[in-house]
């Protein structure tokens, strides 16, 4: 096996030094009744070229661009990834390093993630951002636990316009400790409806913008409502590119911002890994879960970076830690930073604008063939349309022709039968969209 450098002679000499007769003798501390009997029933090893064939056969069974044109986002977005991003991110000094506990030989990771924290804080409009979380859903769930710790209240109010999977994760995290979750509905415009919602004993109000329907939420109004009741506003997002053009959540009064950063240079990867982006106001820094990197100086006064405020974390505060997170998604944060550095300020805004233009064109085109938008609130690059019942079978036929035309959302919203969530990004051309319309046109 090419990963093992040992020769028989090496093994013999090492055993001699140890004073053991055989490798088996090294396992003498394991009682016989704990030993497994017989070999593991696994496939025989493949040489490198056979592995290539086996894996590419599996990969071929998934439909991807250019054979499939995606008109679906819903939490994972098809964006262009400049070649420079993976080329730099996969430099093995970044890729094969451990958590930077030894700062003197980890300055590369440390400075890069400090830069990520800075860029992310500016985009999200918050004072501090953690070194990353698993994904948007877990970052949001931990934000609510954070709000509960901070306010001393136990109930949270969660908008139904938040991604359904995110709401499932919130329920999973809050269930064992019994913190109640109240759901707020949505209006005919497609934004969160707080009428009839009592925030007085709530630790937090959680809203996503753009929300699951693609609509942009009036966060300032919700910040006022939450703060008047002594609750924190937690703002989420699934489409990070929207931060390139929309007012930032923090600037509108969100106390904690927790979202998904996959759009920043990460492949869709069948849903993972992504990037949990989590940030907050300065006074919440000690309740943040996960790692933080800070700037300091070495003994010679030279600037450098270290993991800091570690006393919040599991390995020091143990059962009283702000979270149990240890491994995070640091490499995904590094990738996002490289992406942002490449696209830059003007590029990000322009790309965000392009995404909106494409989606607006697609929405207008669908309307001309009898599939109008369901909601009137402004949207970014996703929107919900109402379709005639016959569209369900047309959509199945379109799969054979290489179009994934929208996502039916009735499963999560029974009241939205025959409604589909569509998405358009810069990866779709006008021709792609016109083709789709031509296929669907009665």
């Amino acid at each position: 096996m090419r990963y093992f450098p040992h020769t028989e002679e090496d093994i013999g000499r090492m055993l001699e030094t140890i004073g053991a007769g055989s490798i088996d003798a090294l396992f003498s501390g394991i009682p016989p009744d704990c030993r497994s009997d017989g070999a593991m029933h696994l496939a025989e090893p493949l040489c490198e070229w056979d592995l290539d064939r086996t894996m590419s056969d599996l990969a071929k069974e998934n439909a991807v661009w250019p054979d499939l044109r995606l008109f679906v986002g819903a939490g994972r977005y098809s964006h262009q990834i400049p070649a420079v991003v993976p080329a730099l991110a996969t430099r093995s000094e970044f890729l094969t390093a451990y958590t930077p506990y030894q700062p003197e030989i980890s300055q590369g990771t440390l400075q890069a993630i400090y830069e990520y924290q800075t860029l992310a804080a500016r985009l999200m409009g918050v004072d501090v951002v953690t070194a990353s979380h698993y994904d948007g859903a877990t970052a949001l769930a931990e934000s609510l636990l954070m709000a509960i710790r901070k306010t001393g209240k136990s109930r949270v109010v969660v908008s139904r316009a938040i991604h359904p999977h995110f709401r499932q994760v919130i329920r999973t995290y809050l269930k064992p400790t019994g913190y109640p979750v109240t759901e707020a509905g949505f209006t005919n415009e497609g934004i969160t409806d707080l009428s009839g919602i009592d925030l007085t004993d709530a630790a937090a109000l959680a809203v996503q913008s753009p929300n699951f329907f693609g609509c942009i939420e009036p966060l300032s109004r919700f910040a006022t409502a939450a703060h008047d009741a002594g609750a924190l506003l937690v703002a989420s997002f699934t489409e990070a590119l929207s931060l390139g053009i929309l007012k930032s959540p923090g600037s509108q009064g969100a106390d904690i911002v927790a979202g998904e950063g996959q759009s920043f240079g990460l492949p869709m990867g069948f849903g993972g890994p992504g990037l949990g982006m989590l940030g907050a106001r300065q006074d919440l820094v000690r309740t943040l879960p996960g790692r933080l990197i800070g700037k300091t100086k070495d003994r010679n006064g030279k600037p450098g970076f270290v993991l800091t405020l570690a006393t919040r974390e599991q390995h020091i505060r143990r059962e009283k830690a702000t979270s149990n997170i240890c491994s995070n998604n640091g490499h995904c944060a590094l990738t996002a930073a490289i992406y942002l550095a490449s696209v830059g300020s003007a590029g990000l805004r322009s790309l965000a604008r392009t995404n909106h233009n494409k989606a607006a064109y697609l929405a207008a085109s669908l309307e001309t063939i009898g599939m109008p938008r369901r909601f009137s609130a402004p949207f970014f690059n996703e929107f919900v349309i109402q379709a005639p019942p016959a569209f369900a079978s047309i959509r199945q036929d379109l799969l054979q022709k290489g179009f994934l035309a929208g996502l039916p959302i009735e499963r999560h919203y029974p009241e939205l039968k025959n409604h589909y969530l569509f998405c358009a990004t810069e990866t779709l051309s006008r021709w792609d969209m016109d083709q789709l319309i031509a296929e669907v046109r009665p």
Partner: protein
Amino acid sequence: MKNETATSGLSLNEPLLWERGRKGRCGVDLPGDDVPQSPLPEEVRASGPPDIPDLAEIDVVRHYTRLSTWNFGVDTGMYPLGSCTMKYNPKTNERQAGLAGFCNAHPLLPENLSQGALRLMAKLQTDLCEITGMDAASLQPAAGAHGELAGMLILHAYFAGKGKQRHKIIIPDTAHGTNPASAALCGFRPVAVPSGPDGILLAETVRDVMDEDTAGIMLTNPNTLGLFEAHIPEISRIVHEKGGLVYADGANLNALMGIVRMGCIGVDVMHLNLHKTFSTPHGGGGPGAGPVLVKKFLDPFLPVPRVIRNDDGSLALSEDFPFSIGRLVGFFGHFLVWVRAYSYIRSLGPEGLKRASQLAVLNANYIRARLKDTYHLPYETPCLHECVFSDKDLTPYKVSTLDVAKRLMDHGFHPPTIYFPLVVHGSLMIEPTETESKEEIDRFVDAMINIAAEAKSNPDLLHAAPCRTRVTRLDEVEAARRPCLVG
């Protein structure tokens, strides 16, 4: 010294990213709009472009290339971090994870268009069950600690289903550091118990604390001293007799592949770290993957969605499991990490995996044998994949574990895990893994012996270490007192 691994070379300085930018540059050529403009309403739009720098492509390349040279990775040199299993990360795994059919697959693809992804999930789950002797698995947890959380949620759901919740959980002092926090997230109160004089947990210790309000035990096996918890069959019996469950932290599975099956020695729930045992890269802190595995009676509690087999043999995803703890992540978990782990398992096969464990244990014992006369060895029990020394013999010279660790960098090695496990004062936890050669280990051992000699002859050299790195010791006190977390 001859044959030194580390030397000094040209290392380029590099400013912060935003000190490189120039308005008007852009590192990508943006696609023009082929559709009409449709401005967003002013009330939702930011007044100006975001406050991030503008760089040309060459600026970005130079910046990150230089930063990368300030980092030490497994590809750079030996990384003997105890309980972290920093083995070599095979390049072919990266090739497989980069296949367009994996990378560009949308998670909401219809099932008939994502059979490849679902088959890989099903196969990896089956393989992990075979390796561990468990009956069912979920790949969902995003990291080891997330796998522990999944396990604790399963315990919580199990007792909820029994109609009587339990509130305590036993955690020995040699368990992984994340365990108490994972238990606390589910409302369990950790009950700390000491290991015995040989560094392993004694059955009577568990018998003394196990009661009807204790959900079970969280055991790291082999533990963080690198020792096999030999009394686990009896400990499991004691826990089970009182209606509790046994959770195993599988972070150290690299010692046991093909040698011990956790499912056959009384373990009910466990997690694995694919970024340790199964060679996926750590990426400077993540992403990892921490699949959770259970015995049959706990199968109904696994997270959803789950991969199921249709009557025609095709695969599908289902959320139709009423007792499930629910969803743990936004989609299914760290799929591209699974691709790498699956590639690894297929490359090694059953004999190769067992060989990996055997050689990992050989390497650790070799280090232990070569260093035991130079550094204090707190436990005489034979070790498995890692060995733990302490700085006890160095204290007369006012030299600590931290000094030894910092000096190792000057010799060209990443330090071991230090000050953990807590049961050993000033511990140095060394895990070489199977992918280090005898020569490399000999160089490491020589460096350690050298450092011990330096501690006696010139302790100030150690206090000042590292001196060959780009930066010297950093002021962590100032960093924590006056945090500067953004630039």
